[in-house]
């Protein structure tokens, strides 16, 4: 990365909102934009935790190359106890803690993304570094992340518990995104099997995926980490996304 041309900015930057607009939609498969917790609470990131939101600003092209969203929360028991609920759970918990005025002691990132045309250029590591710097500057002891392993969607029938044990010849995680975090000093805690739950009617899923669901059963969805379960009698398809709790001990 040419450090001269990329700058980490926060919502204090006058153009922040414009620069990151539409970025999420560019990255995720459509169905991933229909997590109920995300849709209900997303605005809280800027309302409550503005100084924890970052973008990587490409100054030469006046674009956001990527974005990182995080917040602080209170966690007093060992990290091994972090719950199965992963992403959905942690977002609710952070908002709740903030509402109660509970002083936070831990940092959690819920999204670190790069636009497709900025991927494969070594920008992921500096993005992770920028998030770790926030943990440090806020005096929090650890950065935790319910990670979405970036290649798991190619292996939707393999259990995530098995998948995270796959290694390259160098002994690093097989998954590219897990690899970035391990190289940056992260450690795998465990799988959170119900990190996000995405529900939709049959018609919604057909729109989101451009597929058809003529019968109840399990379906492979492009970009999904596990199969989706469609129940026509209830007119409901449910996708439960597993993620991986990882920790960066920063403090």
């Amino acid at each position, binding site marked *: 990365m040419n450090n001269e041309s990329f700058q980490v900015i926060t919502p204090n930057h006058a153009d922040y909102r414009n620069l990151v607009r539409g970025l999420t939609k560019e990255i995720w498969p459509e169905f991933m934009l229909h997590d109920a917790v995300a849709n209900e609470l997303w605005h809280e990131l800027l309302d409550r935790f503005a100084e924890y939101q970052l973008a990587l600003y490409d100054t030469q092209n006046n674009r956001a190359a990527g974005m990182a969203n995080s917040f602080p929360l209170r966690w007093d028991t060992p990290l091994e106890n972090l719950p199965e609920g992963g992403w959905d759970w942690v977002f609710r918990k952070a908002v709740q803690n903030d509402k109660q005025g509970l002083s936070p002691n831990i940092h959690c990132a819920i999204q670190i993304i790069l636009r497709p045309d900025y991927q494969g250029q070594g920008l992921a590591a500096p993005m992770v570094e920028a998030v770790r710097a926030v943990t440090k500057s806020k005096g929090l002891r650890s950065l935790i992340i319910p990670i979405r392993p970036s290649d798991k969607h*190619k*292996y*939707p*029938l*393999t259990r995530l518990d*098995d998948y995270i044990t*796959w290694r390259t010849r160098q002994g690093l995680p*097989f998954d590219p995104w897990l690899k970035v975090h391990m190289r940056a000093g992260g450690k795998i805690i465990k799988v959170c099997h119900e990190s996000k739950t995405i529900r939709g009617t049959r018609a919604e899923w057909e729109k989101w995926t451009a*597929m*058809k669901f*003529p*019968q109840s*059963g*399990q*379906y*492979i969805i492009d970009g999904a980490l596990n*199969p989706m379960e469609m129940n026509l009698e209830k007119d409901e398809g449910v996708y439960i996304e597993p993620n991986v709790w990882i920790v960066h001990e920063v403090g």
Partner: protein
Amino acid sequence: MTPDRFQVIHPKDLKDYRDRAGDIGEASWPEFMMHDSIANEHWHELFDRFSEYQFALLDTETNRMATMGNSLPFRWDEVISALPEGGWDWVFVKAMEDHKNKVTPNIQSAIQIAIHPDYQSQGLSIRMVQAMREIGQSKGFKYLVAPVRPNQKSKYPLISIDDYIQWTNEEGLPFDAWLRVHARTGAKIIKPCHEAMIIRGTRAEWEQWTGMKFPQSDVYIIPGALNPMQMNVEADEGVYVEPNVWLVHQIEE
């Protein structure tokens, strides 16, 4: 597209017919589909024994081969509904054996209609089915059968093919585009053949064919495959069993 832009040709009409036909196959199928052992061992027999059952559409404007069709004759004295689960692999071997044993054939089976990606969605598939039927007609056969690969099944690898072939669109035609082409030209679905092709490879071969990794024994979703593939790391063998659908076209009333 002018009606006579595409001309039906046979292997005897073009010196490099087999090479050019091979290119269409490679452009049309996922790599792993090129490793069916029956196909690889016996493909040349199509040209050695059944040359007049092989044909292609030549684009006369560009002199490119746009499509290819392969079929063969065999002997079938039972009812059509008794055709076996072995589908594609079975019918290929059966036709060769019949020919070797000088058994007079009485039925035709299609084994491939491939359309070069550059020529898809131009209505050539219906032309190909018609050209295939005309061969059977010229031989005086009553039926053309086909173990058909429903292409879009690859998006639904967890649905049983028995269920999948019952899916229909709003017009009541088959959901699957290939099954629809056949239905529009008068074909009837007989039944699935669950073991139409069997593709075996070592772990290294499957990794090369798919660009994936298979670190553990498991079932894997392979792009372009109609069902999951089963990898057994201990036996160093991945097995993919491809289901197809037996269809029948009645050639003569």
